[in-house]
């Protein structure tokens, strides 16, 4: 009952209700020019459906963050084509929320004001966004943290505020670059669950970058495994597990089978040297 009313409140957004699709063909990225040029990524293809939760996992430096920057239009492609909702990307997406490994909150704004920045800059309706912000604060376990400055919050709470900032304008796509990478294991498990519950209600398209096999399997519909640099997608694994997924994934044989599969790919790649 409560769940249902939350759902409608969370998705009575302005422009979009469902997630966006991302399709990419043979995209590559080369940083720099001439002799200093560095081929960082690809070519890779992506076909992410509206409302899908897709994780990108791969060795350090393989181009995961680069992929995210390309998919959001923040960095130009070096070659290939990329479409969001069927339209080629020509400038940075705005129907999007981004969360990085560091919270990147502004020290000089309270938690709420950090989130409301979305409203200020986009010129959205203040009352509507304020209501959504309070809702997200509740849902993300941030009750009462509205007026606190980031330095008054714990690392986990800051990251939660940063997730609220990425969702408050009801974007159709959520891009996350190792969002839980800097958190302790307990916080990570909780915040993973909270994110999954939010996603189940809103079904935004999520591109989630991680180093953690547990996170990838615990959250995704699909896991894309990347090779060492320059990264290519070498394996696509559909995760057929019921949701919401449990906290202690390791205890479930189905989970272990998926995790084992990813480990073995990494082992073949030579990511692990034991």
């Amino acid at each position: 009952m409560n769940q249902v009313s939350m759902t409608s409140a969370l998705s009575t957004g302005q422009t979009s209700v469902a997630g966006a699709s991302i399709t990419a063909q043979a995209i590559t990225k080369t940083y720099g020019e001439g002799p200093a040029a560095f081929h960082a990524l690809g070519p890779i293809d992506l076909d992410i459906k509206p409302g899908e939760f897709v994780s990108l996992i791969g060795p350090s430096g393989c181009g995961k963050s680069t992929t995210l920057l390309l998919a959001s239009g923040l960095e130009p492609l070096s070659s290939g084509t990329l479409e969001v909702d069927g339209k080629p990307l020509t400038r940075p997406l705005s129907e999007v929320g981004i969360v990085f490994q560091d919270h990147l909150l502004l020290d000089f704004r309270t938690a709420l004001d950090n989130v409301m920045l979305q409203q200020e800059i986009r010129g959205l309706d203040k009352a509507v966004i304020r209501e959504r912000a309070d809702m997200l604060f509740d849902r993300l376990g941030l009750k009462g943290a509205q007026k606190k400055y980031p330095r008054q919050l714990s690392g986990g709470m800051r990251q939660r505020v940063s997730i609220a900032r990425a969702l408050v304008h009801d974007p159709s796509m959520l891009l996350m670059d190792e969002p839980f990478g800097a958190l302790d294991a307990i916080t990570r498990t909780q915040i993973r669950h909270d994110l999954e519950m939010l996603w189940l209600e809103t079904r935004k398209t999520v591109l989630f970058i991680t180093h953690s096999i547990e996170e990838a399997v615990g959250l995704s519909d699909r896991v894309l495994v990347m090779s060492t640099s320059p990264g290519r997608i070498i394996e696509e694994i559909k995760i057929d597990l019921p949701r919401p997924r449990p906290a202690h994934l390791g205890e479930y044989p189905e989970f272990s089978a998926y995790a084992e599969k990813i480990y073995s790919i990494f082992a073949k790649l030579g990511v692990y040297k034991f």
Partner: protein
Amino acid sequence: MSEQALSTPQTERSPLWYRLDRLRSSFAGSAVLGLLAIAALLGLWEWLATLYNVPLWLVPKPSNFLGRLVSDWQMIGGHAIATSITIVEGFALGVLIAVPLALAIAAIPALERGLYPVIVFLNIMPKTVIGPILIVWFGIGPLVAALIVFLMCFFPILVDAMSGFKAVDKRLFYISRTMGANEWQSFWKFRLPAAMPHIFSGMKIGVVKAVEGVIVAEFIASNRGLGFMVMQASAFMDISLMFAGLVAAAIVALFFNGAMSVAERVLMPWSRAGH
């Protein structure tokens, strides 16, 4: 050692020491302690000078020069105000030029490569050397003193503001761009406040330099202000007025440093918010 001793935090001190520490850390407390220390020092000075009968023209007693501060308050106050105005002018000019320039330099790499050597050169050059040149151009007066003050405080503000603007995380711009922020919003809402702590620490150094520099500037290049007054008193061998000028200069310095602290608290409440 017993287990209990090991687990006792080392912060434990005697209650008196703790209370003194609390007093020291509170603003009013530190002011009271400071005043007490100064009063004790002046008392000792007065006592020694009377005891050994030190002649007034050599070292005045505190009662002499503090007396001058009272009896000549109009003249000294006038000069103190002139000095303050010079500080404000020079400092404001410094901030108004240094901050935008720092932003431009941080944003345009070519500008940095071109301008940085010039800035470093101008920075290491003793600023008072320019005084006589400025006198030739503008004549003796507070304007020249203000320009010297400007040069004194300009560089620390520029350098800190530059590092402030550069230290802003690139991924913050990614976030601002997905929000659709224009250049103006990106400056006002992200860059400037994010660089503010750096700019402020530059401004604090700048104010110290300004209150230090203004007296020297008035020695050489002004016909008003405390520096000028002390020079004049020196010409007349009026040593108690010179000491009074010194005290007045210290009060002006104290005032400006205090004003900076207040401005910091007002403009950057987050930097003081405790846990």
